[in-house]
């Protein structure tokens, strides 16, 4: 597939302005297509198994339904003035030069069909307003280019009308699913959540074994019996985290960090095997029904376990769904303790404890690391932490500064709400899309290269499972160490001084000797 035939050499592209605008390369990415979902994977989500006979009619009907039910879609499809402000804002355009990856051009793939069938001008003077019939070619274009959008919302920050291409991509994917043309990667994963409880398909038994193993490891490392509880009824806090945290590196190091913080805070908490997934790919495929079904599992788990609080681990789009949608989709959560934010982000949880002086850190344990922070799109542009706008930028950085002596931000126009996607979000984190993932990561890799050169930065922290997985793959291609991507709570885990731990003895001894010298 596309990945195999690509001649793109990341190392030749890692130097330069992260936001450099490429020359237009028409058709460059037309061949990039994810694998199509198998009939079984489609039907499990309530979609037709394969492309239906009357797909054109069905697609147009579905488009009508979606527009009737989404003010955003209707306003966005009508309002674009083709000003061009968004044309250079998408990392996939910056990385590929394919003009169909300019946000407005991506929207136009759907807009031209909307115009043709739903507007007066498109019906009677289609050539004038760029309206087009929904043909097989158009459908192919949709399948290709709506899977080159990570739904990162960077374009919506700059559009004078706030047009969010993510909403358009979600709608297009919903339409494609509805006519039987689904994406294998996302739909297979949603099926696993329904059947097993998480994206990775880890059954309760495996989870239990993993967590028991972690308890041993941490006790060995610290001398403290830090618990990793699963399905414990009556615990105060349900911690819902992306299943990658149970499985891969550097995610798991972050998970260890959560557990250490919970332990030190002295709270009772638990994971749930039924809701062992914070991620919600229902959002990626634009299916509100599936997104709601996944979200409701969390409600059910919280109710059955009888917890009082709901905390989410490090995951970008999961935090969007949790923060912005969960109460709407699966609420009300009136059985939880209303004195705490519902839901709460693990970074908020940890940062509150830091503010209250309840956590001690030995920052020198992170001295080998010169760190920067990658703002994940969905946290940055689709949610919040804390009680002020922009808390989602300040709180993770506050944690990193509390746990690490060397912290440097990347260029201002590549962080905070201007952040650049890792290149693998929105359901694109699959091997057959490696070419577009590599190219889409280029702007971020260049920004990282700059701080590496200017400040000797060696590591980049993130709070998103997808970012972490994507960076683990693309960093080596751009000449960085694979392990230079770290979890925020990995930094916490490295530096935290647990009461009664081996580290505490060293820490106290070091402090004493300093005091004696004075």
């Amino acid at each position: 597939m596309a990945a195999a035939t690509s001649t793109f050499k990341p190392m030749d592209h890692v130097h330069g302005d992260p936001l450099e605008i490429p020359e237009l390369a028409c058709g460059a990415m037309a061949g990039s297509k994810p694998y199509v979902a198998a009939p079984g994977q489609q039907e499990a989500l309530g979609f037709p198994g394969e492309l239906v006979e009357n797909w054109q009619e069905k697609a147009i009907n579905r488009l009508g339904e979606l527009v009737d039910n989404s003010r955003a879609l209707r306003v966005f499809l009508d309002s674009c003035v083709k000003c061009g402000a968004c044309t250079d804002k998408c990392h996939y355009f910056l990385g590929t030069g394919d003009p169909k990856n300019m946000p407005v051009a991506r929207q136009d793939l759907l807009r031209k069909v909307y115009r043709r069938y739903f507007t007066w001008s498109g019906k009677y003077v289609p050539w004038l307003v760029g309206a087009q019939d929904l043909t097989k070619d158009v459908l192919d274009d949709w399948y290709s280019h709506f899977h080159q959008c990570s739904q990162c919302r960077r374009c919506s920050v700059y559009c004078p009308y706030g047009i969010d291409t993510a909403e358009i991509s979600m709608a297009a994917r919903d339409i494609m699913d509805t006519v039987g043309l689904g994406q294998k990667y996302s739909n297979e994963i949603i099926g696993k959540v329904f059947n097993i409880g998480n994206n990775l398909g880890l059954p309760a038994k495996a989870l239990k074994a993993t967590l028991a193993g972690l308890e041993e490891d941490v006790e060995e490392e610290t001398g403290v019996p830090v618990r990793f509880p699963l399905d414990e009824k009556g615990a105060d806090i349900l911690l819902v985290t992306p299943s990658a945290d149970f499985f891969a590196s550097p995610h798991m190091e972050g998970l260890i960090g959560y557990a250490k913080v919970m332990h030190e805070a002295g709270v009772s908490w638990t994971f749930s095997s039924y809701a062992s997934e914070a991620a919600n790919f229902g959002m990626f495929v634009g299916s509100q029904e599936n997104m709601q079904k996944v979200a409701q599992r969390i409600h059910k788990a919280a109710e059955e376990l009888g917890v009082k609080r709901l905390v989410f681990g490090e995951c970008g789009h999961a935090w969007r769904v949790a923060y912005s949608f969960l109460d709407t989709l699966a609420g009300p959560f009136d059985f939880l303790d209303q004195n705490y934010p519902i839901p709460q982000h693990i970074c908020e949880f940890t940062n509150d404890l830091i503010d209250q002086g309840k956590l001690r850190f030995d920052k020198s344990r992170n001295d080998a690391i010169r760190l920067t922070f990658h703002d994940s799109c969905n946290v940055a542009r689709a949610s919040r932490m804390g009680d002020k706008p922009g808390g989602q930028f300040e709180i993770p950085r506050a944690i990193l500064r509390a746990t690490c002596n060397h912290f440097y931000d990347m260029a201002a126009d590549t962080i905070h709400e201007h952040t650049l996607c890792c290149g693998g979000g929105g359901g694109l984190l699959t091997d057959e899309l490696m070419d577009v993932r590599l190219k889409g990561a280029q702007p971020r890799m260049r920004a990282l290269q700059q701080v590496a050169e200017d400040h000797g930065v060696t590591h980049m922290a993130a709070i998103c499972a997808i970012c972490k997985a994507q960076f683990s793959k693309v960093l080596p291609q751009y000449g960085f160490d694979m392990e230079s991507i770290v979890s925020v709570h990995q930094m916490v885990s490295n530096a935290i001084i647990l009461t009664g731990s081996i580290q505490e003895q060293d820490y106290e001894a070091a402090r004493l000797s300093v005091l004696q010298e004075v």
Partner: protein
Amino acid sequence: MLTTAFALSFYTAALVLAGGLGYRIWLYASTPAPLKIPTTPAPLTHSGVAARMFREVVFFQSLFNANKWIWLFGWIFHMALALVVLRHLRYFLQPVPEILVLVQPFGELAGFAMVAGLIALWARRLIVPRIRYISGPSDHLMLALLVAIGISGLTMTYVAHTDIVAVKGFFLGLMYFNWQPLPSDPVLLVHLGLVAALMIIFPFSKLLHAPGVFFSPTRNQADDSREHRYVGSARLEAMSRKA
């Protein structure tokens, strides 16, 4: 004959504009917004949202952050257009309010700024490959229409004066259903004909961005989903109860 034709066109244009725009606005208002999707960081309160919207509509804040050239030309064009429209109110109001008398000299100058802004935007549309790529025939025609309206207007102000008193009589006559003859000056007829065309096109074109911006959920929603349970669509709510 001429008067009748223009009178009828302006009645039609006014009806299409008001009806079409009213229908569109009704559609936007009545279409559900099922989820909270403000582009963050977003204001936490409704007064904060009003302030954000004000900055967007008056200063084009997002556009400013996106691209300084498009912002500059676009902002000049829109502000000049606002002044020009204000100035033209004098042809519909008798007596002319004090404020319009004050606006008059600025309004005249604004005519030039408006055309200059439009031409600069058009030049970008032709020269910058990215913007040329996304431009269709309607985008160029819209600019042509607006430039033609501007230039015909300026021509009447500075080159070939028209009987402006009679023009005002014509429009007052339209408003009070007591038709008065329209001068048959060709530049005037072109100017008025194009304006009527613009009014008719408005509700069927990208000019819908004008009402659209106020209804854009990424800009008009407050970031308060943890503070208040958001219920934006009956459909989702029903499904949530069932579960």
